[in-house]
């Protein structure tokens, strides 16, 4: 997030949610948005292919066709430009590329976008006005924006909208991706990415590389590494021989599970480190038992870049070892000893090579934590980014054209399948499915089907149906509901026994981010 979570409750005069089912996936942020609307009268604009809970209290709700995000946002910008609701001063002083972008936007009239998105032109106009006319307006998005073959374009479009209205660099504004996992921000910050060292320092930059070579006392590879999805493909083609998986479950979370399974079967070494015997662990050659968050010390970095302490509450269960100790033991045996007596010692080394964390210590993190960047020990952290300038100096507009999703419905697969999460479960379900109350409350998967579609297929609520795509099929309970449109169905990916990712498409990656198109693939529903 460019801004902090509590601004959504206190400072934002308008909140625009697109591709985030906030009350289910980031519930506490959802509460704050609701309070802002109810108590302070903040305006709420919601764009989502499903009529999610927050749509009910929105001033404008746009139920758009999955995968048409760019057309929708471009049309909002079209209105803002034509009605002169843009922030000219901000555009002049802080941005570049406006003319090129505006040239593309010109054709995206609300009427033109209505054809693509199925959102009434008048609603697009209303939404654009609410967002642009508010003193401070915040955009929040989640995987609904990013999990598309055009994910990067979608994100750029969202940024365009914020730049166009000057909604960056002050409290209550910003472009705010709500990240799905407790420490996904931290994992990225720490350089668990194939192209960057900690703090997004590029592995291909020789000055950076020299710095790390010095710090770590070895020479380092100058080549970008493989993304997760690319690694799976290389395993499939047998170019990748060994894979170590820590606390991940690609056998449930990754697209096209049949493909994943074959890829993992091809490996000479699959090492899995996890707390449970996951679907992926079952395929492993060696399994290390790690610990839960209750059994370790350390830090997590949340979606607003706030670094907070994790504190050990109980001793590691049974014969488990904290994950950091497993890594140290392995490294020692690989001839590269990494000796640390505690996570704090690791943190203290990490911050010497991570400029955005340089000013943090465990002592300083007590209590409220710190938002990065926090470059030195006097610095109080940075809840709001881009106050005076952007990382690159001027904010760059991108001229983005709408592109269709990779796999469109056809006669054989006439519906659009979207996947996502439920309030009561988390990711591949390894933890929540073993949490007695959560799993009792929501024990099985469902596929949401519009009543008209259900009637056409002669399906009643609660009936087991088969969902079929080009990759495979699953049997799952039908939930007949008009929160989805007639041409859309939706299912959850938490349930390995009815795994949504048997259905999803591994060939439709975003070309830049390598993210799979979980929000759109072509499917059909069959009566069993």
């Amino acid at each position: 997030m460019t801004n902090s979570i509590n601004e959504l409750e206190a400072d934002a005069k308008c909140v625009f949610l697109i591709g985030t089912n906030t009350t289910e996936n980031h519930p506490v942020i959802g509460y704050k948005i609701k309070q802002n609307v109810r108590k302070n009268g903040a305006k709420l604009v919601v764009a989502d292919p499903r009529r999610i809970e927050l749509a009910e209290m929105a001033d404008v709700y746009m139920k758009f066709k999955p995968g048409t995000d760019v057309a929708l946002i471009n049309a909002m910008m079209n209105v803002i430009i034509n009605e002169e609701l843009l922030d000219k001063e901000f555009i002049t002083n802080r941005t570049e590329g406006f003319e090129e972008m505006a040239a593309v936007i010109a054709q995206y009239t609300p009427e033109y976008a209505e054809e693509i998105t199925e959102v009434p032109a008048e609603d697009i106009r209303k939404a654009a006005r609410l967002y642009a006319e508010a003193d401070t307006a915040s955009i929040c998005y989640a995987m609904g924006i990013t999990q598309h073959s055009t994910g990067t374009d979608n994100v750029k479009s969202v940024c365009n909208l914020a730049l166009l209205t000057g909604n960056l660099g002050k409290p209550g504004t910003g472009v705010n991706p709500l990240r799905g996992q407790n420490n996904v921000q931290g994992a990225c910050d720490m350089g668990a990415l194939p192209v960057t060292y900690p703090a997004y320092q590029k592995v291909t930059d020789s000055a950076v590389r020299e710095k790390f070579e010095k710090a770590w006392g070895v020479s380092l590879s100058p080549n970008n590494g493989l993304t997760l999805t690319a690694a799976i493909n290389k395993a499939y083609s047998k170019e990748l021989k060994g894979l170590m998986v820590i606390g991940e479950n690609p056998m449930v979370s990754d697209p096209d599970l049949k493909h994943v399974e074959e890829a993992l079967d091809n490996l000479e070494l699959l090492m899995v480190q996890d707390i449970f015997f996951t679907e992926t662990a079952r395929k492993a050659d060696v399994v290390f038992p790690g610990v839960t968050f209750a059994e370790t010390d350390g830090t997590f970095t949340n979606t607003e870049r706030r670094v907070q302490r994790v504190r050990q509450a109980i001793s590691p269960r049974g014969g488990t070892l904290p994950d950091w100790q497993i890594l140290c033991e392995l490294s020692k045996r690989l001839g590269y000893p990494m000796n640390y007596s505690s996570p704090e010692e690791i943190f203290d080394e990490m911050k010497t090579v991570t400029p955005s964390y340089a000013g943090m210590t465990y002592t300083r993190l007590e209590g409220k934590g710190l938002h990065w960047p926090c470059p030195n020990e006097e610095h109080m952290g940075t809840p709001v980014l881009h106050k005076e300038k952007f990382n690159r100096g001027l904010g760059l507009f991108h001229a983005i054209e709408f592109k269709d999703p990779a796999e469109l419905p056809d006669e054989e697969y006439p519906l659009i399948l979207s996947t996502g999460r439920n309030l009561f479960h988390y990711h591949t379900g390894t933890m929540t499915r073993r949490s007695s109350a959560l799993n009792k409350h929501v024990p099985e998967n469902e596929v949401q089907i519009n009543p008209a579609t259900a009637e056409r297929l002669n399906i009643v609520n609660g009936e087991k149906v088969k969902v079929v795509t080009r990759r495979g099929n699953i049997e799952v309970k039908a939930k007949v509901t008009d929160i989805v449109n007639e041409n859309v169905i939706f299912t959850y990916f938490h349930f390995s026994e009815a795994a949504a990712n048997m259905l999803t498409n591994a060939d439709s990656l975003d070309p830049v981010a390598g993210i799979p198109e979980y929000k759109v693939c072509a499917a059909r529903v069959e009566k069993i």
Partner: protein
Amino acid sequence: MISLTIDGREIQVPRGTTLLTACRQAGADIPTLCYDPDLRLAGSCRMCVVEVKGRRNLVAGCVTPAENNMVVETESPDVVESRKIILELLLARHKLTCHTCESDGSCKLQDYCYRYGVTDSRFTGEFHDGPHFSKEDANPFIKRDYDKCIMCTRCVRACEEITGAQAINVMNRGHHAKIATIFDGNLEDSPCVFCGQCIMVCPVGALTSKVAAGKGKSYQTEKVLTTCTYCGTGCTLELNVKDDKVVGVTSVRDENWSPVNRGALCVKGRFGWDFINSSDRLTTPLIRENGELRPASWDEALDFTAAKIKEIKGEHGPDSLAMFSSARVTNEENYLAQKLMRAAIGTNNVDHCARL
């Protein structure tokens, strides 16, 4: 600033301060049941009554503004008598079963009865003869025992003002009054999202966690402040620990210790913790032998893995190895994971499921 005298002590407070705040500032221990600093005032329990010189009636401190030159007594005989009557009235419809109550030791009703020596009620009969309120609610998260409810309405206000669910409200009047969902149904059929904010604010044992039930009373557990393991919001929560086991989750409402959520949690954070003690936990390393995974010692498993990595690296080069680190483990572990791949193995093939 205005000045007033509280229990013989003169203090200064800004104009607009309530008497309750002023008294507490003066060091008086004012009992409250319905008062909650984060919620709209209810002014209904009247436990916070104090005596103001020159006024005929006792006043409720939480709704009365402090005035210049007021002289206030916080434990005068009239105040004490009034509080006793309130407590007795509450006990009259209360299922007093402290010995088996989850809230024993962390219950305001119990504390105040102790403080004022109230053992039972002179308004007897009502509980045994009168209406019963306990609610069998099949949900797996929240036990609703309204025979212990004191009608402070903090749960109603938290549900609306913190979570925004508006799932529960006051139903009926007089001594039939109770907390209920619309049509007095189960929480599951209401807009309830099982956040447990109602449990958090309940000052007695009327609302309690079914997941933590029977596992330890508050004073038997140690509370360890940490960060939630689920979504990226990063809520602060307290793991309740007894005998080296996590037996519950609570939260702190102090912004200085719970900066993101000020005590509010969602259903996963508050009720999704017993996986920690699951019998499914992996407890020993495993090695595949003849197609089967069998238990192994740490040394054996680590040596096996290291040897295999070296072999692959020797034959096919470092880029034939890759690691998926994790968005669930700590920063420290992610740092080590990428350092291991880059420095110990020599490849940048490290990623995690940020995109999934």
